């Protein structure tokens, strides 16, 4: 009798665990469905135009001021896509060399105590909230860009620019790239350190035993062996960059411009808006149904990208295990 009761308890316990695990696993499906339902209004009207047309900021403004019946449900987020790609790619260009360089020093070329201090500093940097990066970006990076690159003449010139009128304030693509780059560098460094440390010691010893210099061992043996870990880290950092909303909404300008190559260096000074920061930036207009749906559409795009990224890191990891 007693053992029977125990079995029942054991069974109940098991089923509680099963339910919580399944609920946790289903969460992503819930998230997708809920967001997709709200996004459908805009996605069904805009179709492919959602990614091939521009003018998101103007469409938001128009929807906000028009009466409920007259709003357009058409939104074009080409500018947001381009800005998201540019900020993330630029941040990676900045962060990958710095991150890998730092990781190499931490793993191979520093005294143990210094290495420990460095990795502690890196982990601390990785856990600094994005709002603080945003605040410092806004108080330091943006004024710096404004003072060193933007003169009043340039501002006036671009207010009447024939290709695209814009107000240069220092909040720009460049500020976004710098802030995002500093933000993702510690994550990248930490993951690279892990990847290098995961390479079997015998590889390094074999290299050193052959009389290869320590530096060559690092570049020709350790880094290539850690390649897949490096890729996984870069994908993760890119995912973080694409999804970063707060810091970018503070420093990147908040207007859905498409930076023009014809502008030369001003390309980088263009105020831009990324997909994630659009949701924060325009959240106050969410009471308008069309705008709400447009912002949820940005959410759908973000979920799909992050899914793609997670799946590809899994593939990279699996490929390594197969090897």
């Amino acid at each position, binding site marked *: 009798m007693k053992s029977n009761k125990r079995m029942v308890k*054991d069974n109940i316990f098991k089923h509680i665990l099963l339910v919580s695990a399944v609920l946790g696993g289903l969460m992503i499906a819930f*998230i997708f469905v809920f967001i997709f*339902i*709200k996004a459908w209004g805009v996605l069904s009207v805009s179709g492919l135009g959602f990614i091939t047309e521009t003018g998101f900021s103007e469409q938001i403004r128009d929807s906000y001021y028009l009466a409920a019946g007259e709003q357009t449900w058409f939104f074009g987020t080409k500018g947001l896509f381009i800005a998201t790609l540019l900020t993330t790619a630029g941040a990676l260009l900045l962060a990958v060399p710095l991150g890998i360089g730092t990781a190499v020093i931490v793993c191979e070329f520093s005294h143990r105590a210094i290495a420990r201090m460095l990795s502690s500093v890196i982990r601390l940097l990785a856990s600094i909230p994005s709002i*603080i990066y945003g605040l410092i970006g806004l108080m330091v990076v943006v004024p710096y860009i404004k003072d060193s690159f933007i003169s009043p003449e340039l501002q006036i010139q671009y207010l009447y620019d024939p290709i695209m009128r814009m107000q240069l304030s220092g909040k720009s693509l460049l500020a976004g790239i710098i802030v995002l780059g500093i933000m993702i560098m510690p994550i990248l460094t930490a993951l690279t350190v892990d990847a290098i440390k995961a390479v079997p010691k015998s590889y390094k010893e074999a290299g050193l035993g052959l009389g290869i210099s320590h530096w060559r061992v690092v570049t020709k043996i350790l880094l290539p062996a850690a390649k897949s870990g490096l890729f996984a880290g870069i994908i993760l950092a890119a*995912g973080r960059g694409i999804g970063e909303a707060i810091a970018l909404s503070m420093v990147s300008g908040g207007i859905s411009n498409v930076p023009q190559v014809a502008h030369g260096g001003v390309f980088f000074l263009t105020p831009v808006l990324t997909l994630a920061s659009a949701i924060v930036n325009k959240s106050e207009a969410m009471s308008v149904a069309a705008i709400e749906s447009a912002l949820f559409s940005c959410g759908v795009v973000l979920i799909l990208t992050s899914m793609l990224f997670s799946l590809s890191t899994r593939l990279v990891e699996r490929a390594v295990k197969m090897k």
Partner: protein
Amino acid sequence: MRLKLFQDSVMKTLCYFAAVMTVAVCLGIILYLVIKGFDQLSPDFIMTEPNPTFSQDNAGGILTPIVGTLLLTFIGTLLAFPWGLSSALYYTFYAKKGKLRDTLSTAIDILAGVPTIVIAIFGLAVFTNPFWGFLSSRVEGVEGISKAFGRSFWVAGITMGIMILPYIIKTCAEALKAVPPSYIEASYALGADKRQSLLRVVIPAAKNGIITSVILGMGRIVGDTAIVWLTLGGTLRMTGLQPWYSPENWPSTLQNTGSTLTSYIFYTSPAGEGNMPSVAFGASLVLIVIIIVLHIITDYISSLGKLRDEE
């Protein structure tokens, strides 16, 4: 040969440069916050409520943002910890290798990669449904359309819980996996069943890892802004019945909006409406101190684990 050696040394110097840059940026950020925020810090700043005003002297302090941060951390952890730990137990000790386990762990991985802003709008989409009206306040529509407001401490806390769930599951699963199988075998040999072995042997053995995982989750809640901004709203003060701190008003406080340190910083930074960077720096300093303290605690706990292993 010479040229190659030269190239090597140039590259190596660049690496050192990168490392120095990293440290300089970190120290720079913290020093900058300390310098800018220290003047602002005083018992008064921490113990008074914020006051929406244009005058710097009457701006008040950050009492309610600190309380808000604590509330969200508490609610979020309370939801995510039991949920995450029991899921981790299932993955580690019950799920058979196969399709179900693969699908579930892929789903958790994807959830971990979803940007918090997306989770924030998910929270908003779910909790504006009138069914969940008891968690926030109901908005009575004009033509009988009832809609919940969808912004409150409950809503934001629950959304935070969902945000940290995948991290808690992953880190708890790692901690559980690190328990040597011999422990469980010994427990079985003594006649315990699986449930007893897990609850009395495995979980206590993985205690340090589990605590670390919870603290890391708390750190994520403390630092998140996107979820707060969308699901708690942009109000500085507690908007429930006043005074918010007296126990009979707690339910109302939790059903209404407020602020946390992060949303306070966003609000008072030049990006928000307040535009009072000096108080924003004060709040940032408090925020970073909280983060550093959480960091030191996890370091301490993991050093405890190492000491035990070496014995």
